[in-house]
């Protein structure tokens, strides 16, 4: 095992200076003095002049002859891209990629897309302003020679500074000192720049690389989850929303003696809209239990007075609740039926025509009972249609049946005459 010891390089020259002149800084007590000094320095031909003040000073742009910034155009571009992009995105999403009708509004509607368009325009304008400022100012910067001077520290509270940079061909430290002192500078200093190393510290480099590596983990995990399946139960991030301490309908509760979570109606009370009516009106029969098909206990007529308003109500309810399967004319050709037969899945029973003799001969009470409790595949509609409306439907159904099976005697004489003439 041999060791080689490298000889330490010996420099015979003058040691390289660890810093060089960056420029000069002059401190003022007021914005007015700074402005007049800046104007004078600009007149002397300095180009690389910067002012640092605790608050924005009016007139400093003119004094320093700063060219109008291009930032507003960048912000405007950001806003227009945001507005246009958001508008196009919403129209493409809702009108083309996945057309979805909401509340009958047009698929591509302008009013509903304005809030998002506005918000994204603001967002991108703010981004453009933020990153534009960073870009135009060459930020972020890890260090600046100004921070090495003590006098600069009070610029953030109550003092005003003018800084001239030494790489300006017209820079002359002595002249800078004379002119600024003439205009009331309280101190003038030169600024040194550390030139020992401009390389990024290893620690920062390592931190940056690890950050980038760590940032790759979430997208990789997401991609993996999307591409594979799992048998584990799903994660519930918000426990108390998924599992709420409450009882639902039809469940048990240890709190009450009878073990039910739902409470029974208190005896002697009536729920809103639940006023008791004559049982015959609410059931359609006079016995205690539904009678047989041929029984005489079915009500033979409608127990509420048949007015033209009741007829209109019956037509409206019929077209809402019955026509989907039975068809508007009662022939058993509603849109649901037509579609179900098209699909040919074999589970659908086509409703018989309401004009069929077997239906026509049924007493009114039996038709009412069918609407209430359903028959064969038809569900009961007691929970959706109130008893008066069910009688209204029966009334309309009778009118519908009469329209196909009327006798000349059913029609008033003058109407009959008119009909005979027109046919």
């Amino acid at each position, binding site marked *: 095992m041999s060791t080689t010891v490298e000889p330490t390089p010996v420099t015979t020259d003058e040691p390289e200076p660890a810093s060089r002149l960056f420029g000069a800084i002059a401190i003022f007590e007021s914005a007015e003095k700074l402005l007049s000094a800046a104007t004078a320095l600009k007149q002397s031909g300095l180009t690389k002049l910067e002012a640092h003040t605790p608050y924005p000073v*009016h007139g400093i742009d003119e004094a320093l002859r700063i060219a109008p910034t291009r930032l*507003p155009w960048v912000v*405007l571009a950001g806003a227009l891209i945001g507005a246009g992009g958001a508008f196009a995105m919403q129209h493409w999403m809702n009108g083309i990629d996945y057309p979805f009708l909401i*509340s*009958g*509004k047009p698929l591509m509607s302008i*009013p*509903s897309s*304005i*809030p998002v368009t506005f918000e994204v325009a603001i967002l991108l304008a703010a981004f453009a302003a933020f990153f534009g400022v960073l870009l135009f100012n060459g930020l972020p910067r890890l260090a600046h020679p100004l921070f090495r001077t003590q006098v600069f520290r009070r610029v953030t509270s109550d003092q005003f500074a003018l800084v001239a940079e030494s790489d300006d061909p017209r820079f002359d430290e002595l002249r800078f000192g004379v002119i600024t002192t003439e205009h009331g500078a309280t101190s003038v200093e030169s600024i040194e720049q550390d030139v020992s190393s401009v390389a990024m510290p290893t620690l920062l480099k390592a931190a940056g690389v690890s950050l980038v590596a760590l940032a790759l983990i979430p997208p990789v995990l997401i991609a993996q989850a999307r591409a594979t399946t799992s048998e584990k139960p799903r994660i519930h991030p918000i426990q108390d929303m998924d599992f709420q301490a409450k009882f639902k309908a039809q469940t048990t509760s240890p709190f009450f003696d009878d073990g039910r979570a739902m409470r029974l109606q208190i005896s002697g009370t009536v729920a809103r809209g639940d006023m008791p009516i004559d049982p015959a009106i609410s059931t359609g029969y006079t016995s205690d239990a539904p009678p047989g098909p041929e029984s005489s206990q079915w009500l033979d007529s409608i127990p509420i007075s048949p007015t033209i308003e009741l007829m209109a109500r019956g037509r409206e309810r019929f077209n809402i609740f019955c026509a989907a399967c039975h068809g508007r004319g009662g022939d058993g050709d509603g849109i649901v039926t037509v579609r179900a037969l098209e699909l040919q899945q074999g589970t659908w029973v086509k409703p018989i025509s309401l004009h069929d003799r077997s239906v026509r001969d049924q007493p009114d009470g039996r038709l009412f009972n069918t609407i209430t409790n359903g028959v064969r595949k038809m569900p009961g509609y007691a929970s959706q249609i109130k008893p008066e409306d069910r009688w209204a439907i029966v009334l309309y159904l009778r009118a519908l049946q009469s329209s196909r099976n009327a006798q000349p005697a059913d029609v008033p004489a003058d109407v009959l005459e008119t009909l005979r003439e027109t046919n």
Partner: protein
Amino acid sequence: MSHALHPAPHSEAFSGKVAGPLRSVGLGCLVVAALIAIVSGNATEFWSAWLHNWLFSITVGLGALLFVAIQHLTKAGWSVVVRRVAECLSVTIGPIAWLAVPILVALLADSHSLFMWNDAAHVMEDPILSGKAAWLNAPFFVIRTCDLPRHLVVVCAAVLRGFCSRRPQRRRRPAFPPACQKRTTAHRSWCDHHTRIIRLDHVTRSALVQLHSGYPICSPSAMVAGLAALTLVVLGLRKIGLLPQVTVEHLHDLGKLLYGFNCFWAYIAFSQYLLIWYANIPEETGWFYHRQIHGWAEVSLVLVALHFVLPFFGLMSRGAKRHAPTLAFWSVIILVANWIDLYWLIMPSVAGPERPRRDW
């Protein structure tokens, strides 16, 4: 009808030269309009034009008053040179408020050419109106209308006192007397009433309408009108050399406020439209639907263009706000747009919820 009062600065020669002829022209126009109304027998046209222009004139003063109040509350220093002008503008509320008296007198005299709820026969037929009759009636309306000037007179008097006193600002006295602040906030109770004056339409209810036009204290309409008039007067006085202290920076700040509040107006106006459009409730959509038919669609589009789209892009850049002629141009446009805004709010609903546009 042009009875908008232009306040003259405290320069006798100037006020004599400008205010006199303006007053004569305004009174002359008023007489001509009254004659036309009497000859044609069309009282509705006369009263709706009166209401419209009265509200337009008073919004300028209300906006200026709001501007003054904000300057005091925020202890703003930049605005001292233009605040005097705003104080002058806000004092116009005093005389202009009296111009509401003819409307109230007509109401008490059972005129229903403006407000259909003052027609007893009509109220009987309309279940909504008869339900609101307990408070939607002439005496109650008059009392509530008089409530606003009562507060405003106090505020204006305080403003005037501040204007007349030449004592320096540093004096340790609340700049805006607390009593005035209380009065200013007391206008909140007036907002609902003001809405009713403007809407004339008793069916529709929308909280945002009050923000748009009815809320005298934070109403974007009033603020925009006040700022536009203030900017114009400041520019005019500066041009004839009466306000040499006003620099480009002041103009820039006024322009920024004008631009910001104009966008705020558009924000509120569109919020109202969006909610009503989306909810699609018949008694609310009717108000907007009527403004899309019977010749009102053109007015609506002109309003959108003049009150938002054009000023939004025209006054956006820094240069436009710092260039006096450009700023004056957009102030005029926004002032005209505010006039159209009130026209659009009032005229389609005068004497009933649905009235076609009339061209003359």
